[in-house]
């Protein structure tokens, strides 16, 4: 019951232009976007990139609160970055609070870095919110497969990622079940000192590992009995194909990125 609800990643299954894109073009987009975000140095470029990302969020039919939610774990980092810059920039002090100097230059610099971080998260969130984990691993495999020529195990890596993602909810459910079973035997996971709690984990972890190993063995047998022998000669159900929309999306992204880079160099 509990495990069924555990959503891995943040994928929001919708049907939108962004969702239909080839995962590889979205990964490309994120990689190029990150590089651009680190290179640009002007507010104007940020505004352009920000506007572009907002447009993409709209295209993906994503509610804005989903995108904002992904920023939540970053609040502390953002606030800390801003504070450090504001208080510790050796610059002309704007206001003095005892030993704390508030610097205007630092404030700007801090806001700049915060904006950069926020945009970074928004760009990657655009990928994870519109791409299912399976598509994502397919995309990674597709991008890494040119390296196969030099013996890089691209398919095996992708398969491992897929299996890991597939079993996270299963193992969570299992952990929850075992925890309850041990609670029925009088163990208390919630109170007691540090050592007592650590020792309390053994009755949870041992059965969990036993069942994980058993599952792994079953899975291996099931895969072998269906003649799985790695990626050689394997065809796929969903072929990744670059469509016209992917070329259009990548061209538009490239255009925006180049534009913002040149804006940055011009105004800097």
């Amino acid at each position, binding site marked *: 019951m509990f495990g069924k609800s555990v959503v891995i990643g943040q994928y929001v299954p919708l049907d939108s232009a962004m969702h239909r894109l080839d995962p590889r073009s979205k990964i490309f987009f994120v990689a190029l976007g990150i590089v651009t975000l680190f290179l640009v140095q002007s507010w104007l470029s940020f505004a352009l990139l920000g506007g572009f990302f907002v447009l993409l969020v709209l295209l993906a039919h994503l509610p804005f609160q989903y995108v904002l939610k992904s920023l939540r774990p970053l609040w502390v980092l953002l606030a800390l970055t801003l504070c450090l810059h504001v208080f510790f920039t050796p610059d002309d002090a704007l206001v003095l609070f005892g030993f704390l100097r508030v610097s205007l230059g630092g404030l700007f610099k801090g806001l700049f870095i915060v904006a950069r971080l926020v945009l970074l998260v928004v760009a990657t969130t655009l990928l994870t919110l519109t791409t299912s984990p399976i598509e994502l691993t397919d995309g990674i495999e597709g991008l890494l497969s040119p390296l196969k020529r030099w013996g890089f195990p691209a398919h095996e890596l992708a398969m491992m990622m897929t299996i890991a993602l597939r079993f996270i909810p299963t193992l969570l459910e299992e952990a929850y*079940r*075992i925890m309850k079973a041990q609670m029925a*035997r*009088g*163990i208390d996971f919630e109170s007691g000192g540090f050592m007592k709690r650590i020792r309390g984990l053994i009755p949870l972890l041992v*059965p969990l590992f036993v069942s994980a190993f058993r599952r792994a063995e079953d899975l291996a047998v099931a895969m072998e009995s269906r003649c799985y022998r790695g990626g050689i000669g394997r065809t796929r159900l969903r072929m990744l194909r670059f469509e016209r929309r992917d070329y259009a999306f990548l061209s538009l992204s490239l255009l925006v990125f180049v534009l913002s880079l040149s804006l940055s160099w011009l105004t800097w």
Partner: protein
Amino acid sequence: MFILVENVSFTYLANTPFAVQALRGVSLTISRGESVAILGRTGCGKSTLVQHLNGLLMPQEGRVVVDGVDTRVRGAALKGIRQKVGLVFQYPEDQMFEETVFREVAFAPRNMGVEGEELEARVRWAMEAVGLNYEALKDKSPFELSGGQMRRVAIASILSMKPEVLVLDEPTAGLDPQGRTALLERLQDLRRQWGLTVVLVSHNVEDVARIAERVVVLERGRVVFDGPVREFFACEHRMRQYGIIPSPLLQAAFLLRARGFEVDPPLTPLELYREIEEKVLARRKPCSVKV
């Protein structure tokens, strides 16, 4: 009454888009010495209800009272409730982790603060109560036992708390026929010899017929039947309506009834034979065909 469940409702992941209401206003009482079977199709709320009986889940509405104590207590009182109501989960052997059978069975009473000779006596009693040889098995690893033995060790590891009520969620699932028969016999003995109250969750009608005297049927989180086992088995239509498939024994009785013989629902093959002898064969002339 020993356990009182009053108007209990429970929703998983309440206030999220994933909310699933598992129980809707369930009321039921269980008295000392009873043997109750909780029946119903998959997802009807059986397992959720059972986890309310020992305070693993707390009712979101209504209340559960065990031996005069509301389950919404904390600390020692909650441990007391879990000791009085021993809950055996489905596939209980999955929760085993100790190096020896003895330590496995001793785990729960140790958590309850039992030590020394009393502990050993309890482990011995619990193992023998489920038909395991204490001397031969106590130092073995629980992981090298057979499936049926593992299941019994797991049940012993709950029994060693000396619960007053033993709640079992599908105790015979995945056992071979011999293991199943042996386990059911042991459960009956536990009731007869030690006066244990037994609550059995199952959708296996044969298991229910062997163990239970009373049947509670859940359907979509509601109690739709609560009465003697024979009364429930008397009506084929009702059983099927709630997704419970009659055992072959009952099906034979229903067929005879459809032919106009007033056969009572049997719980054992012997009962069916007696019913046939009395109500079917007696009405006919002795068989003229040579056998």
